[in-house]
C-alpha cells in the first residue's frame, strides 16, 4: 500500500511538470493575444490622433490690407447694403500684390491669391460693416490662411517632395517662409471647426451641422426606442404568457438585433420616405430608422435587467397586496433602471456611430447650415466623416481624423456613463 502511494506521488510529480508547462504556454498565448489587440488599437488611435490634432489649429497670415474705396467699388458714405456687397476679394488681392510686388505672371498671381481663404473676405466685410471708418485706410489684418498654405505652415508638406505632386508650389513656399520670418504668421485654436457646417474649403469646414444633426437624430431615436423598448421588455418579462407566440417574438427580437443595419436603411427608405412621404435627409426619418435598430438592444438588455431583480422584492410587494402593475412600477423598474439605462446608452452609442442606414435615407447631403428642427435636411457625424474621407484635399484628411476624434470622444463619454451607472448599481 505505502509503496503504491509512493509510486503515485512520483507519477503525479512527473506529470506536474508537463501540466505546468502547458499552463505557462497557454498564459503566454493569452498575453500575446491581448498584446496584439492592444497594439492594433494603439496604432489606430495613434494614427487618428496624430493626423487629426493639426485640424484643431488654424493658420492666419498678417496682411497689410488697404481698404480703398476704389477697389471696394463703393461710393463714400455708402449704406450697409452696398458695403456688404462690396468687392472684398479685390481688396485682398490688391493688398497681397502690394506685399509681394515682384509677382507678375498670371499663374503666380493666382497662386498668391490662393494663400488666403475665401473666408477672409467675410471677415473683412464684418470688420468694415462694424466700422465703416476703415474705408480708405490701411491696416494690418490677420487673414485666415488657405488650407494648402496652412498645411505647409503646419509642416505637413515638405519641399523635398516633387513639386508636381503637391498643391503648394515652391513659390508659395518662398512667400510663406518670408511671411513667417517677418513674424506675419500665427496659429490659433480652430473655433470654426466647432461653429461651422460643412464647406467646400477645408479650412472653413466644421462639424457643427453634423453634431446638431446627430443630436436631433439621437433625440428622435431615444424618444422612440427608450419608452417602446422598456415597455416591450416589461410586458414580455412580467405580463406576457409563456407560449408559442411569445417564444416566436423572443426569437425574432434576438434575430432583429443581428440584422445588418443597412437593411433598416432600406426599410426606412421604402416605408417612411416613399410610402409615408416623410422628408428626405431629415433627422426625423434617421431617428426612426435608428430606433428600429436600437430597439432590440434596448429590449434585450432591459429584459435582462428586469430578470436580474431579486424575486424576493417582487414577493415582498405582492405579499403586502400590491397589484402586479404596482409591483413592477414601484419596485422592479426602479431597481432595474440602472441596468436598463446602461443598455440604452450602449444602444444609443451604437446609433451614434451608425452611418450605413442613414446613407440610404439621404442623410448624406452636403449640409452647410445646422438643422434647426428634426425635419430639416441634416447629416450626422459618422456620415460627415465618410464624406470628408472621400475628399481628396489634404485639409479634409485632417478634418476626417479630427471628426473621428470628436465622435470617439462622445462614444467614450457615453460608455463611461454606462459603466458608471453599472458600478453604482453593483455596489448597491
Amino acid at each position: 500500500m505505502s509503496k503504491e502511494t509512493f509510486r503515485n506521488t512520483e507519477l503525479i510529480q512527473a506529470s506536474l511538470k508537463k501540466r505546468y508547462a502547458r499552463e505557462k504556454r497557454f498564459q503566454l498565448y493569452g498575453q500575446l493575444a491581448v498584446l496584439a489587440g492592444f497594439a492594433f488599437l494603439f496604432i489606430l488611435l495613434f494614427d487618428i490622433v496624430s493626423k487629426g490634432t493639426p485640424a484643431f489649429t488654424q493658420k492666419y497670415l498678417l496682411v497689410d490690407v488697404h481698404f480703398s474705396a476704389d477697389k471696394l467699388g463703393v461710393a463714400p458714405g455708402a449704406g450697409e447694403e452696398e458695403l456688404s456687397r462690396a468687392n472684398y476679394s479685390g481688396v485682398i488681392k490688391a493688398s497681397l500684390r502690394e506685399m509681394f510686388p515682384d509677382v507678375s505672371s498670371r499663374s503666380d498671381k493666382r497662386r498668391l491669391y490662393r494663400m488666403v481663404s475665401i473666408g477672409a473676405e467675410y471677415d473683412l466685410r464684418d470688420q468694415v460693416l462694424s466700422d465703416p471708418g476703415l474705408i480708405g485706410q490701411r491696416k494690418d489684418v490677420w487673414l485666415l490662411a488657405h488650407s494648402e498654405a496652412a498645411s505647409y505652415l503646419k509642416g505637413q508638406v515638405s519641399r523635398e517632395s516633387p513639386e508636381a505632386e503637391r498643391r503648394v508650389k515652391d513659390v508659395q513656399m518662398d512667400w510663406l517662409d518670408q511671411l513667417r520670418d517677418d513674424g506675419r504668421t500665427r496659429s490659433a485654436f480652430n473655433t470654426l471647426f466647432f461653429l461651422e457646417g460643412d464647406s467646400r474649403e477645408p479650412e472653413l469646414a466644421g462639424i457643427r451641422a453634423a453634431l446638431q444633426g446627430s443630436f436631433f437624430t439621437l433625440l428622435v431615436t431615444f424618444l422612440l426606442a427608450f419608452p417602446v423598448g422598456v415597455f416591450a421588455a416589461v410586458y414580455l418579462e412580467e405580463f406576457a404568457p409563456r407560449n408559442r407566440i411569445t417564444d416566436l417574438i423572443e426569437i425574432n427580437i434576438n434575430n432583429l438585433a443581428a440584422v445588418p443595419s443597412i437593411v433598416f436603411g432600406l426599410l426606412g427608405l421604402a416605408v417612411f420616405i416613399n410610402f409615408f412621404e416623410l422628408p428626405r435627409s431629415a433627422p426625423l426619418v434617421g431617428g426612426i430608422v435608428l430606433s428600429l435598430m436600437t430597439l432590440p438592444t434596448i429590449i434585450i438588455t432591459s429584459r435582462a435587467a428586469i430578470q436580474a431583480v431579486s424575486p424576493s422584492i417582487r414577493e415582498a410587494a405582492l405579499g403586502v397586496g400590491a397589484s402586479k402593475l404596482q409591483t413592477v412600477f414601484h419596485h422592479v423598474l426602479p431597481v432595474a433602471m440602472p441596468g436598463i439605462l446602461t443598455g440604452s446608452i450602449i444602444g444609443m452609442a451604437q446609433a451614434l456611430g451608425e452611418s450605413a442606414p442613414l446613407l440610404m435615407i439621404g442623410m448624406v447631403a452636403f449640409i452647410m447650415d445646422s438643422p434647426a428642427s428634426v425635419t430639416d435636411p441634416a447629416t450626422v457625424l459618422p456620415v460627415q466623416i465618410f464624406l470628408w474621407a472621400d475628399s481628396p484635399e489634404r485639409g479634409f484628411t485632417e478634418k476626417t481624423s479630427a471628426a473621428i476624434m470628436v465622435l470617439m470622444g462622445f462614444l467614450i463619454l457615453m460608455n463611461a456613463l454606462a459603466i458608471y451607472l453599472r458600478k453604482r448599481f453593483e455596489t448597491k
Partner: protein
Amino acid sequence: MNANDSTAYGAVPEEAVGLDLNDHTAMDDYQTIGEPLVDNAKMSARDVNVFYADKHAIMDVSLDIGENQVLAMIGPSGCGKSTFLRSLNRMNDIIPICRVSGNIALDGEDIYASNQDTVLLRARVGMVFQKPNPFPKSIYENVAYGPRIHGLAHSKAEMDEIVEQSLRRASLWDEVKDVLDKPGTGLSGGQQQRLCIARAIAVSPEVILMDEPCSALDPIATARIEELIDELKERFTIAIVTHSMQQAARVSQRTAYFHLGKLIEVGDTKQIFTMPRHELTENYITGRFG
C-alpha cells in the same frame, strides 16, 4: 434530543401507528392523525393538492387554522411546508407551473373563487418570508407602502401614526425612530426581519403567514421575534413554518407535521411534542429523521 436517547424512544405511546417509509401504497390514501379541524377556524383547507407541473407537492391536505392562534408547521426539508403556506394567500399564483386544487377558505369564503381578488386577499393574509426582504427604500417607506397603496391613511399624520404603531408592535420603533429615512436594507438581519413584520402588520391583516422567519437570525433576534409572535397572536391569526422544534414548542398552540407532501399529524403542540402518535412524527421530533 438525541436519536439514541432511550427515554425519548421509550416514551413512544402504545397506540403509535407503525408505517413503512418505503411502502408507498400504504401512503396513498393516508388519513391525517389528530385533530386537523377546529371550531373557531379562521382559515380552513380541505383536500388541498398542489402540483408543480407533474410534481405532486401537497397531497390531500385538510387543515384548519384557529382564530388568534399560532399554528406551527414542521417537517423535513422539501415536504411542502412552504408550498402549503404559500397557497394560503395565493402566492403560488406567481409560479406559472403551479396548480392548486381543493378548497381553501378565509372566514368561510373560498379564496380561489373566480371572483376573489388576490390584492384584497393578500391585504387580509399577510406574509413574512424566510429571508428578510425589505424594499430598497427608506424604513418609513417600507412600512408605509402597504397602507399607501391600499389607501388606509388619509393624511400624513395618519400615516405617521400607522408607521409608528406598526414599528412599535414589531418592537423595532426604539431602534429606528431616528433613522426612518435611512434605507431599510441597511439594518441588521434581525432588524430587517422585524421591519418586514412591521410592514406586514401595517396593513392590518387578519392572518400572518411566516415562512421560517428566524432562519437567518441569531438566538437573541430569534427570541425577540418569538416574543413578538406571542404578542401578535392577540390580534392576528398566525401560521408559522419552522425548522426549530423548540421554536414550534415555544410559540405555537397547534402543530402540524408534514411529510413528503402529506399532513401526517396535527394536534395540540404540547401533545405533539410529548406524545406524538405517528411514528414519523416521533422520529422527526426526536431527531432521528429529517
